[in-house]
């Protein structure tokens, strides 16, 4: 069963529907027992970093996720804010500690100087840096849907799986062992997005 972690933010309905349509058993919850029973986890996200991380801490979700991901080695997929929450630190409205699974800092897109608008909203092509089963059937140059104002700057380049470009290099996808995350929204990226999610549910890191 895929558990979508409900932390009070985000477009949970769309994420759940996308998993349903590709035939997976899915549950939206913040219940710790249900999270323990899951086979794989999804940390979705639309919203602000501070609210997100606070909610995870208040409900004890951060500890449980740590246990499932770092000890039990269950596959996890972070999406958008869900990707950023995996990092060490974010500078969105202050300075906030993240889950720390991925070494790096989340910083505001600094692209107004290139006459580019922030947020970065729309379809942008990705460049795959590292082959992974999650991009099976997906090639560099495919477009995915992005909507964000902050970008993860990875400390360790080997965590970087795919990038995009918007004035600066955008971290589009990262992977470290059983942890995978995308800045783009697969659940909103039509056929290619669904293909990616299908790859995720078959993934055995």
């Amino acid at each position, binding site marked *: 069963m895929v558990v979508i972690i409900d932390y009070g*933010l985000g*477009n*949970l*309905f*769309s994420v759940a*529907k*996308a998993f349903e*349509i590709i035939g997976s058993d899915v549950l939206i919850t913040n219940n710790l027992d249900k999270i323990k029973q899951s086979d794989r986890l999804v940390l979705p996200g*639309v*919203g*602000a970093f501070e*609210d997100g991380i606070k909610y995870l801490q208040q409900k004890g979700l951060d500890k449980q996720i740590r246990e499932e991901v770092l000890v039990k080695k269950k596959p996890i997929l972070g999406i958008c*804010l869900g990707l950023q929450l995996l990092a060490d630190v974010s500078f969105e*409205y202050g300075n906030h500690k993240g889950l720390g699974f991925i070494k790096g800092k989340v910083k505001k897109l600094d692209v*107004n100087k290139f006459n580019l*608008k*922030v*947020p*970065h*909203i*729309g*379809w*942008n*092509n990705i460049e795959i840096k590292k082959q992974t089963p999650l991009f099976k059937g997906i090639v560099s140059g495919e*477009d995915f*849907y*992005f*909507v*964000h*104002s902050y970008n993860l700057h990875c400390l360790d380049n080997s965590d970087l799986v795919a990038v995009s*470009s*918007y004035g600066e290099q955008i971290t589009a996808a990262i992977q470290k062992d059983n942890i995978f995350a995308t800045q783009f*929204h697969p*659940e*909103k*990226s*039509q056929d290619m*997005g*669904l293909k990616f999610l299908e790859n995720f549910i078959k993934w055995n890191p």
Partner: protein
Amino acid sequence: MVKSRVIPSLLLKNGRLIKTKQFGEYRDVGNPRTIAKIYDAQRADELIFLDITASIEKRHFLIDILTSVAEECFMPLCAGGGIRNFDQAREVLKSGADKIAINTKAIENPNFITEISKKFGKSTIVVSIDYKKNSSGKNEVFIDRGTKSTGLDPIEWSKEVEKMEAGEILLTCIDKEGTMNGYDLEIIQKVSDSVSIPVIASGGVGTIQDIVDGIFIGHASAVSMGSILHFTDQNIFKIHSHMHEKGLLVRR
């Protein structure tokens, strides 16, 4: 690089898809669910649903439509119409919308933009701005489907909503809406050049060239349209391919 977005605008009234002209007289266009699916199949880049249903009792239509569209269309959805508080916003987002458009409430209380943006994330909040020429011939922002004047200049108000942390602006020229005689390029350009958030141009598309102009001349980040899709034989495929031929970056 990011592509120019082509966004069908779906106007809803009492659960039906309609199309107005200059915010007044309207035609029934069909079943919004069916038509949304067609635009999804044609690879529209996003969909905007604006509900202009007058009565409170019939507001559930928007939620029902969003829910059923989001079950089948895995693409970005924006929805608006009468969103005045967090609960309404949350309900719309829970039903499958990714972004919400606010209008009247933003004018009544500009702080609402900041509050809702902090709550749901800046990139979730679209501020919808409708304007037309007032009796003295100056462009002015109107609310309540163009019936109530606000005294605000559309360019100044755009700068203000950016300051208040809006993520995006949906800019509609009421005088142009439904006329199919082209965007109000002058104001679109002035607004796009005055703010550093994306601007969606709306109102007046009659030909694919109008769409190209909206981006090349108007500097819009995205283009929205209704009549050209509802009443002519144009479709999103043809629009994307024509834009590509003109040198614009679009999804293929």
